[in-house]
């Protein structure tokens, strides 16, 4: 960690503040739709599901969220700002030379960010290692990894999906944002790819907060879970 890590914001904000917070970040408009596709999932995770706050961001028993799909992190940064992990003032520095907020997140610069991401196909394999590390140390804490449907093209994900299924990593949850952006698609649906490796699955409306919360809290025993969140095509 470096001196550039931000102090927590004083006052947590609300879901309805997110569009304004996102609007403070300019320069990566080409990934705006990618960011938007994750917005509701991120809000539900941080406001209703994950056991982590700015005060417990270093607690070894905290829940971990790994944003594997590091493109378009504007929604992620907005949620982190709203929940007090990073100062709102930092958002307008997005992408600047001395900003903590790059167009891909850097965990060494941002308090509460568990992994640095950007190159696709890294978050889920790392997440398997994090889950194994917590298990080896008999720690509490679940591991939630967000991937995109197109990101699943990367073969490294399938190394991780297979191993996590074989090992029954029940503390591992994958959120797969399905906005049908994979060029060649996933015939038979994304969930089936995980199920064949022994994962539990749920497919829900990616904008329905209650449905998302229910799916994330399903907590299957003895196997990992994928929650496929369906949002508008191309969003």
């Amino acid at each position, binding site marked *: 960690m470096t001196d550039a890590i931000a102090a927590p914001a004083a006052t947590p904000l609300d879901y309805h503040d997110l569009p304004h917070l996102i609007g403070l970040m300019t320069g990566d408009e080409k990934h705006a739709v990618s960011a938007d596709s994750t917005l509701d999932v991120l809000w539900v995770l941080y406001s209703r599901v994950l056991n982590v706050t700015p005060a417990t961001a270093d607690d070894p028993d905290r829940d971990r969220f790994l944003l594997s799909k590091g493109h378009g992190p504007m929604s992620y940064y907005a949620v982190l700002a709203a929940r007090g992990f990073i100062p709102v003032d930092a958002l307008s520095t997005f992408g600047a030379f001395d900003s903590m907020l790059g167009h891909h997140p850097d965990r060494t610069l941002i308090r509460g960010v568990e992994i640095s991401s950007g190159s696709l196909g890294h978050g889920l*394999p790392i997440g398997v290692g994090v889950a194994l590390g917590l298990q080896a140390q008999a720690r509490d804490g679940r591991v939630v990894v967000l991937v995109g449907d197109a990101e699943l093209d990367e073969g490294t994900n399938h190394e991780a999906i297979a191993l996590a299924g074989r090992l029954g990593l029940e503390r591992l949850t994958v959120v797969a944002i399905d906005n049908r952006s994979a060029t060649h698609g996933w015939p038979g649906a994304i969930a089936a790819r995980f199920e064949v490796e022994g994962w539990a699955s749920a497919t829900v409306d990616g904008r329905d907060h209650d449905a998302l919360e229910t799916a994330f809290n399903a907590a299957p025993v003895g196997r990992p879970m994928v929650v496929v969140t369906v949002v508008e095509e191309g969003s």
Partner: protein
Amino acid sequence: MTVTAPTDTMRDRFERVTTGLLEENPRLAVVLAEIGVAGFARTMRRYPDRVINVGIREQLMISVASGLALTGLRSIAHSYTPFLVERAFEQVKLDLAHQGVGAVLVSIGASYDWPEGGLTHQAPEDVALLGSLPDMEIHVPGHPDEAEALLRFAIGGDGSAYLRLSAQVNAEPMPITPGRFHVVRRGFAATVIAVGPMLDRVNEAAHDLDVTILYATTVVPFDADTLRAELTAPSVILVEPYLQGTSAHRVSDALRDTPHRLLSIGVPRVELRRYGSPEEHDAAHGLDVAGLRDRIGRFVRSDR
């Protein structure tokens, strides 16, 4: 020269020492990608949460090592050189270095340790590749005793380190200090830096030459202080068991204020489509005693 082989291999020593350390240190973990499982079979049964075989998935092996490190464990990733270093290079770069966490990477199958296997199982580029990353220590032992010392040193740190094990060894261990060159002997015509398993051959090739011989078992960080302190002539000969010239820029940087000339000897950038033995490949690349003697001798004499 009488050569007596060590009683165990570097790989044997790695497995034995690591097994002991797993018992002593509850924060130590080993990640394998099928290769090496036999050597850790009993330990894997005893510590199933800390000796993890991910299957034939080398990229996942490094990512898992990263994830373990993110939770506070000290992880070792171990496999055959091309799979550990080349196939998983982006994971080493992004999942370890870029995340700001470390792991100890331990390879077997150095350069052409298994020449019958062909290029798919050879990676003399390993040190050049890993040396391009920030904060990656690189150790090249020449004897099982040195491998053990460097392994213990690497595990004791918290950054990333590469321990390059080889089937090619020197007959006797040197009294090494991790991170420092060992002065084997002093002379006045040139300075020879012999890296890891090249030492015995360099000693024999240069036995009647008036040269300083420095023995390097850590090449990153590069011991520039010892090189500068021991330099008695402006001629340096770098003898590495991997890609020729890998550490040449480090010599140049160490001697940036000293006029000098440099001969880099190592595995050339060619694919030698031959099988056979490591000794035959050494000879083909001029890395046997005769080849070294010829090149070192001509270089030293050309300075007179």
